[in-house]
Structure formats: C-alpha cells, structure tokens
C-alpha cells in the first residue's frame, strides 16, 4: 500500500540528515518499479525486510540483460533517535480539500510535484507540517520534541559523530541563552533530553547535584560529543571584576556555584581558604566547571616588587589572599646556593650602583656583617691596619673629603669598614678628634636612650652628663 510509503517521515530527522542515496539510483529505475512495496515490504509488513535481497537485482542484472551489480542492503538500520516506525503510517491522516486521507510513501519521500521514484529521505518538515503547522523543525515548541524523538540516552544507535552533528535550534543562539533566565528557564521537562544528557550539563554546571533539571537527565558520556565552552558572563569582563568579585560572592554565592567550586577560589585564595566555604568542593559528579588560572592583578606590574612594601605592610591580609609566607621569603631570605633570580645575572658587578643609593632596602634581606662584609673581606675589599692604603684612588683627596660620601651612604661604608677605622680620627679621647656629628644629631636624646654608644668615642666623659 502506498500509504505505507510514508516510510521514514522522520527517519532522517536528526540522526540521518538527508544522506545521499547509497548505491541504488531510484530515478533510473522508475520504469521498472511501479510500487514502493515491491522492494520495501517492511514498510508495510513489520515482519518483512525493509530492503530487497541483493539477489533480486540479478533478475535483470545477470550479466547478459544488464551488467551485474554489487548492491547490498544495509546491514543495520540507519542510526536514529526517532520514535517513528512504519506501522504508524496507517494511523496518520491529514485533512485535504477532499476530506481526510491517510498518508502514502510519496507524501514523505517524493517532493511535491516530483516525478515517480525521484525519492529522497524524509525531511522533518514533513512531520512538522502536521505536528506544528506554520513552524519549522527547530522552531517547534520544546514540548513537541519528544513526540517524534527518543531521549538521547535511549537512542543507543547514535554514535558520537551523529550527536556532534545535531543541528542547534535558533533559540540556542539567542543572547542570554546561556544564562539562568535563558536556558535555565527552558530546562524543564524532557525536551532537553532529546539532544542532551546529564554529562553535557556537567561541562559547565558544577552544581549539577543541586539542579533538579540536571538530575532529571540521565547520564550518558556521548552527550559530551556536543562541544561547548564555558564562557564567562558579561559581568566577568568588567575590568574591575577581579577587585569586586568578593562582594558578589558574599551577596549571593549560589550564582557563583553554577560554574565554580571551591577550587576556583583556591586557585588564588590558597592561604585563606575560608573564602571558599560558600561553594561546594570539586567532585567527579560535579563536572568540570570554570577553571580559573592564577594571574597577578594589574597592580602588580610596573616593577611592583620594588614598591610593594607599603601595601604589604599596610594590609597584609590582602596579600594573604593569594600569597603564603614562603612567597615572601623567596626573596627576603637570600640563599647562598641560588643562581640568578631576584637579582639578575650581572648584579654582582652592578650592585655598587644599586647599593650606594639603596635603590632597594638591602638590609631587609641582607645582614651587613654576614653578607656584605664577609664577601668584601674575602675579596680584599676591607680595611686592614692604618687607613690610607689608597683603595679609593678616584680622587687624591678622598680621605679628607669623605664626609659627604660617608653620611650619604654609611651603610655602604660599613660593608668594608669597622668602627675602629673611623675612630682613628673621629674620637674624643684619641686620634684627631674630628667631630662626626652632623645634621639632626640629638645628643641628649641618644645619650638618654643609650649612653653606652657615647662611651665608644667619649669614654666616661660623655658631654652633658
């Protein structure tokens, strides 16, 4: 019966989209076959084969009447997620000007006005013409999907490549579709299940266990064949987002928990793990979600290492949001065996220029005695015996005019000189009795705080006592 040739009205709806006829040219045989059922008995009789036997071709293609052919019927039905079976065709009717009629093979497999045997795979529009008049296949209401389609998890014949080729409905490209108000509002019922399974949702949703709509879907790893990338929402592109995201978390952590687990927070906030407690911990059942990477904030550029002191001292808790103490001591605790790192490779030669004017506060990390003086002594850069050996030979008068240089960079002087070198001249009880006290010297205060220092030069006769 022709009606049975409504066969495959939806068979190519998703899983087998309009594949080309494989091997058999129907149109070429239009004068040979007056009926579809002659070959496709299965379309009418469920117990019969859908395809003719290969031997039946030999009735003509015997090598004498017609050349032999090697056509073979398909070994298995086309992969499909359709509920349709040809048994249903007799039940399918439609209204025409002449009344209600049942469908025939050509209603689905031959285009309107097409010639006999100019067959094609059934297009979904044929289904939609009756099930959702006036709409196209992918714009049909979600509630209609399950009319024709099986849930993905039950469409076991579909391979990953089939699933990856599913066409996306136009709604999925609408702005805001990825938001809670977008797909979140639509994710009700089983419409999503036609193309998706729980694994698909878990690509982004780490709150899958808490989302009823996701839990309503069954798991199926094939669902990840549809590749999606988690895109940060518009709020995250705000340049100030990094600075202000803490308030957003405190205001409503549930919004963050869609894509983020505690590990997202801990990627940066490692030392202060309490900030992450509002979010669930990562687990296999939660999927992948957002994977933020740790990067320094914008403020850390511009030679920040050399000017972080104020900020670090003022608000150490801010630093502790991302840093642990070990970070600090990577620089603030020099290591004799460390190669170039904080200081560049040529710093040993260059360090006088940085040290004289204390480009950085050297003594925060280096002890003058155990570091500077020890090395200088080994290099011969140390006073021994009477001053005047002439190391400072840049000027003949350095010795008599060294006061300015000394007051400017006393820390540098004591990298090579000890107190007795200076007391040779700058002592009130011996030597040349040159007064070393300069601008800002508060004798009374220092004497009050520690008179022992005064005795180094003045002996027991400290002035003012």
């Amino acid at each position: 019966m022709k009606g049975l040739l409504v066969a495959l009205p939806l068979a190519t709806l998703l899983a087998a989209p309009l594949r080309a006829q494989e091997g058999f040219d129907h149109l070429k045989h239009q004068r040979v076959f007056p009926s579809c059922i002659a070959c496709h008995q299965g379309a009418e009789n469920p117990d019969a084969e859908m395809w003719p036997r290969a031997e039946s071709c030999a009735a003509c293609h015997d090598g004498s009447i017609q050349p032999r052919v090697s056509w073979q019927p398909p070994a298995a039905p086309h992969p499909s997620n359709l509920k349709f079976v040809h048994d249903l065709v007799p039940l399918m009717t439609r209204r025409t000007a002449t009344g209600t009629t049942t469908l025939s093979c050509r209603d689905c497999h031959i285009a309107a006005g097409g010639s006999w045997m100019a067959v094609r795979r059934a297009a979904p529009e044929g289904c939609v013409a009756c099930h959702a008049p006036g709409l196209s296949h992918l714009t049909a209401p979600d509630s209609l999907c399950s009319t024709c389609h099986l849930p993905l998890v039950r469409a076991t014949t579909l391979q990953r490549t089939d699933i990856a080729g599913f066409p996306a409905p136009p709604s999925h490209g609408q702005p805001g579709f990825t938001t809670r108000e977008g797909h979140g509002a639509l994710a009700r019922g089983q419409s999503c299940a036609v193309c998706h399974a729980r694994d698909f949702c878990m690509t982004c949703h780490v709150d899958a266990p808490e989302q009823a709509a996701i839990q309503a879907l069954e798991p199926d790893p094939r669902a990840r064949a549809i590749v999606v990338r988690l895109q940060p929402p518009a709020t995250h592109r705000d340049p100030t987002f990094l600075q202000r995201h803490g308030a957003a978390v405190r205001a409503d952590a549930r919004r963050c928990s869609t894509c983020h687990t505690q590990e997202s927070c801990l990627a940066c906030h490692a030392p202060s793990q309490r900030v992450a407690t509002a979010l669930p911990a990562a687990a296999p059942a939660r999927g992948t979600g957002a994977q933020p990477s740790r990067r320094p904030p914008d403020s850390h550029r511009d030679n920040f290492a050399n000017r972080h002191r104020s900020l670090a001292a003022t608000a150490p808790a801010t630093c502790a949001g991302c840093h642990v103490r070990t970070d600090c001591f990577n620089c603030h605790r020099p290591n004799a065996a460390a190669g170039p790192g904080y200081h560049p490779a040529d710093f040993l030669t260059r360090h006088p220029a940085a040290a004289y004017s204390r480009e950085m506060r050297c003594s925060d990390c280096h002890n003058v005695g155990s570091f500077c003086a020890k090395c200088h002594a080994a290099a011969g850069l140390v006073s021994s015996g009477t001053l005047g050996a002439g190391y400072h030979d840049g000027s003949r008068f350095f010795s008599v005019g060294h006061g300015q240089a000394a007051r400017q960079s006393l820390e540098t002087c004591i990298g090579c000189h000890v107190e007795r070198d200076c007391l040779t001249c700058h002592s009130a009880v011996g030597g040349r009795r040159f007064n070393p006290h300069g601008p800002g010297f508060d004798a009374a205060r220092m004497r009050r705080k520690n008179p022992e220092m005064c005795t180094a030069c003045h002996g027991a006769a400290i002035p003012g006592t």
Partner: protein
Amino acid sequence: MSSPRRAAALALWAATLTGSAAAQGYRLRLDTRVQSVAYRGVRLDSIPVGDTVSTPGRGPTSPDGFAVRCLAGAPYCTFFRPGAAQRGAPLTTTADLTLWNLGMRGLSVHAAGRLGVDLGTADVWPGTDPAVQLFEGYAEYAMPRATARLGRQIVASRLGTMGFDGAGLVLREARRGLELQGFLGWGLARGTALPVTSPALNPLDDFQPRQRQLAAGLGAGWSWRLADVRVDYLREVDPRSDYFVSERVGLEAAVRPVPHVRLAGGADYDLAAGWWGSAEASLAYATPRWSATLGARRYRPHFDLWTIWGAFSPVAYRAVNGAVTFAASPQLDVRGRYERYRYDNAEAATPLFDAQGDGWRWEVGTTIRPLPGWILDGGYRREFGPGAAAAGVAGTMTYAPSRRLSVTALGSTVDRPLEFRYNDAIVRAYGLDAQLEPSPRLRVSLGGTYYQEIHRRPDAGAFDWNQFRVSARVVLLFGTGADEGGLPPAIRLLPSGRAAR
C-alpha cells in the same frame, strides 16, 4: 651546640616529626640548591718608596706598573694587586615543615631551617655559616578571632622583618576590619636568622653586643573597602644595661578612592635618634592595558644604638619616580620607569673633594609573546649617582611549552664605572636556564651562565675575570594524603622564586 650536633639534632627532630606524622597532616618541602661561584678581588701590597718608578705625567708606580699611594713620610707605598681567584660551591638544603591535625583544632607547628655547606676550596660565599640555621620554628594556635604563636618567628612590618624567639599574638575583629598585634621575645639580628651575638655576623671583628636584645612590638591595623591603615611600634632593649637598642614607630596607609586607583604611603620615625627615617608615597593607576605609578620616597638608613653609626648622622635622600606599563596587545608589553633623587645636605663638604650628591636611574623594556609558549623580554637600563653608575642591556628568550617545562636563554651586558676608585668594569653574561616539573612533587632546574668580566684601569691593576657558573636545584614535596590530594592548586603551583614566575 656545635654545628654538626645541631645538624644531627635537627635531622633527628625532623625525622621524629615525620615519623609521628602519619596520623597527622604534614607538609614538608625540601629545596636543595647548589651553584659554583667564583670572583676575584684585590690584594693589598706595598713596596719601599725607593723602589717606586716615576714616569713623567703620571704618578708613582711599582716596577710592574701598579699605581701606588705614598703617604708623606711613610717608608712604604701601598697598592692593590688583583687578588687570588675565590672559588666556592655553596650547597644548601632548605626545609619547610608544617604539621597540623595535632589533636586540637587550630593547632599547628611550623618550622623552616637550612643546612648549608660550601663544597669549594674556601668558604667564600656568604650564607653557609653557620651550617645549620633555623629561620622559624613555632607552634601556632589559630582561631577566627585570634592567632597565637610561640617559638622562633618572624614579624613583617614597615619597620622590616623582625625575627625573635618568643611569643606573639594577633587579635582580629573581621567584621570591623580591625587587627591588633603584639609580640615579645629575644630578638635576632636584622636580615638574618642569627642573634646579634653570633660570630658569623662579625667577620671584621667589629663592636658586637654581648647579649641578645629583648624585642617587643605592637601593631594595630584597620582595613576597610576603600582604605587600610596600620601603625607599628618596635622597641629593642639591651637586657644587660636596659638601654635602648632601637625604638621606632611606623605608619602606613592605603586608599582606593575609585576603581583602578590606589594611593599608598607610609613613614617611620626613629624615636631613639629623634629623626624621621624612611617614607614613601605613591599614586598608582592600573587597568588591564595601562598601569602607571607616580611616587616620592625618602630613604634614611637605620642603625641600632649598639653601633656608633647613628652618631655619624646619616643623611636621607629624597626621590621622585614614575613608571608606566602599556599592554599594546596580548603579545606586546612595553614599560618604562624613571627615578631622580638628591641627598639632603650632609654638611660635610670640603673644598678639595665634592662627592656626587644626586642621581637618577631609568629603564625601558618590552615583553613580546610572538607565539604560544614563547616569551621575549628585553630592556635597557641606565643609572648614575653617588658611588657608581651603570648602563646596560639585558634580554631573555623563554620557551615554555607547558607549565611543567621552560627553557630560558639570557644575555646581558653592563658597564659600571665607580666614583671613588678607578675601576670601570664591564660584564657580559650569556646563560641558559631550564626548569622541569615532572610531577607536582618534584621540580628540577639547571642553569649555566658564562661571565666575561673586564676591569679597566690605566695601570696594571686592570684584570679580566671570565668564569662559568653552574647552578642546580631540586625541590621535593612530601605530605600526607590531605596534602597531596586536597591541596589547593595555588599552593601546588606556587612559584619558588622570582625567576620561575
């Protein structure tokens, strides 16, 4: 206790802790490094005045061409010959240990120490004496509103990093952003984990205290969404005489009035000497593309009162500086910075000699990422000021196909004249550095750099000193399951040093 005994005790202690840690949580990080180093200094020599050679137009020299200095009336003239090559190979192992789950919620134990030896022919490189150093070793009890520590610990503030053996307490009211801090203990010397009485701090046989100082500090901070303020007070006292070793107070503040803008500054006052110490202020603007900073700072060294150096009236310098970074594209960053500074009047100038009293430094550079995994960085730097000047270029080329592997080639050249000595040095460096992290528990790095060092003088005192330095590093992580399994990624990925970032 001698160093070997202390080393054995530390090892036994660590082993005991590790062995008993099975039921607790622990994390142990062993960082072993070694490098070969060499340098060459000078050696003082002398000759009788009668042996010197006088050349018209030049000063007296030794017969072999060294410029000599002859003091009037002295029988000998002195000069400096190139010194012997100093070769060292310091090897250090730094251990960081943390124990928790000790039966009381909030209780943990932290220890950090280092074992260092010099494998070279002489102990020429600072940092391996004494062989065993304990940086930190304390028990901590932490609650939401308070943290208490007992043992050797370090407190960082604008007054510096202060180490001490004692007790510390931090109280906080998180809702109001308040924090109070106090500590008391026996202090350590600045910039090291050794007490001021350690012989290692006195290689030149200088004055040295006979007892460790008592250190006490107080701090208070307030943090708000738009601002942070903190004040710190530090007092160190010589327990033998009850006299002050130092007494300082520091104030810090940072304000964030609008997004992207931060104003920060601070100052410290030396209560013992009666003068202002260092201070700084900066206005920073930072966006993903632009970053700029304008700042001013003042630097004045601080000397403890057990030395006489404070009585020599060290003067401060004042500087203004600026820096800018522009990310022209994700593949290109350019940067530049400038600073100019001038010392306060030292009131010590003489008609015969006038030292440089001001200076400047500037730098420009760029970072280029032409392809994924490739980073090119280069810069030119120039500085001039009291004591020395320098100018040079430096560049690196890094290939990092993944977080686990990076290879960097570097090259640089710098020209450095001195103000107070004829010794213009040029050093060129060419190196290669590789870092590999085959697993989260293991990181290995290996580097080698060739140095071509040239010292220029108009006499025989000039010498060249070329050398090849090799450095290696192995970092091992040990820990309980909680450590390795649940450890946040950020901790596992913490960079170990500036070079690794």
